[in-house]
């Protein structure tokens, strides 16, 4: 079993793995903490762990290892707080051609409501929902990364959507 070449210990392979995954890992940490600096710190720490333990980690599971390590580090180090995330400066409106000021105002109001509603999601719901929305990940992939079943991911998605919709329509 230890005869198998563990390519993770090779610097070039590790670097490639790092470059490929650092952005989505940081996003994930950000969905949890809502703090960009803390997110990158967590991610660096997790990659350092992978490098240190490269000979022990099955490289087929290294992505899962990365995400679960981030999760554990997050639970150990960061106090839970309200996570409010801002929108990108240039957010295209849904109807790109509509320049009507009334429409624009309405959409801006909607965005504020959505921002508050996302902050009210549980950490588990928020991360799943945003991994799908922002990173465009399929449910199967999210399930693998978090070490949960695809059913569980779908349940969190539905629950998240339900809460967002209720919050937005009630406010």
């Amino acid at each position: 079993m230890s005869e198998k070449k563990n390519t993770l210990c090779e610097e070039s392979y590790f670097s490639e793995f790092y470059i490929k995954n650092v952005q989505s890992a940081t996003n994930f940490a950000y969905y949890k903490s809502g703090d960009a600096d803390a997110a990158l710190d967590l991610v660096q720490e997790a990659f350092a762990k992978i490098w240190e333990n490269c000979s022990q980690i099955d490289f087929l599971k290294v992505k899962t290892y990365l995400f679960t390590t981030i999760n554990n580090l997050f639970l150990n180090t960061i106090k839970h707080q309200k996570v409010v995330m801002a929108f990108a400066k240039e957010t295209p409106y849904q109807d790109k051609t509509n320049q009507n000021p009334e429409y624009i105002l309405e959409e801006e109001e909607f965005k504020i409501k959505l921002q508050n509603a996302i902050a009210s999601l549980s950490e588990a719901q928020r991360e799943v929902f945003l991994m799908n929305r922002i990173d465009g990940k399929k449910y199967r992939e999210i399930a693998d990364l978090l070490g949960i079943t695809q059913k569980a991911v779908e349940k969190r998605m539905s629950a998240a959507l339900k809460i967002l919709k209720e919050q937005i329509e009630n406010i």
Partner: protein
Amino acid sequence: MSYPYNEELMKKEKEILKWLEGTLSDKETEDLKQSEDFDTIEKIAHYATHIATPKVDAQQALAALKNRKLSKKEPKVRSLYYNNFFKVAAIFIVALTAAYFLFYNTTQSFTTGIAQTKSFYLPDHSQVLLNASSKITFSEKDWNKQRDLTLEGEAYFKVQKGKTFSVKTVDGIVKVLGTHFDVKQRSNYYEVSCFEGLVSVTYKNKTVKLPPGKTFRVINNQIEKTDDFIAQNPSWLQNESSFSRIPLNQVIAELERQYDIKVETKDIDTSKLFTGSFTHNNQKIALEAITIPLQLSYQIKGKTVIFYKYEVQ
């Protein structure tokens, strides 16, 4: 009337999930867009994608990481943390010297205390990884004639091919030729797991052959049914103890070996079965990993931890 309505609702929910994932067909998407109150959902889905996330300069971040001068852990001692390694090594030398003067012969023994693990090689280069609170004794002189050793506690063996290799415990004997396997012998507990090759276990005059992925387990003198496993190593090599349907008292005993604590239980059935695992690196998380699934709470008083039933207020 409510039944078909619910079904309809569930179907719609499924379609929305597929649509969010981008796996709904064009035709179905058209129908979905016509449906009532889909407008809000569409807006949520649209605007959520525009939340800003921190942009990482991957090359720069990688350079920063490399600047930390990280060290890879050597495979030979991979189950030990470096800072523990020197402690272990010191104890090791003392134990060796003591053994030499006490017995003045070639009987070797290796011992670990609470929360320690130890890795060493036998004279034939077979490797032994010793878990916490365990002891191994063997005769160095006779090793080439007879590969016999005595174990109290838990150890993982990577045996070089050769003559029969036996591990004796008070509960049973394990015989192999050249394989990887784990033996755990604790109070009222005996378990052998085979990770590679074939292992033969003798328990009370009965012999069982274990292929890889199989476990032989005796708890309170009862042979237990066990599930197959697919792990390539015992979890404790990764600083984690895993359990599959194991009585709580055995889980607690393992916890006491991995952390320097004493666990007391209050009005709890400790024969309750536990499935799960706990880490060896963080006492708080380990305690939660055991108590939460069993709906228990705990209280720490110095080195004593009390488990009690969680009362809903």
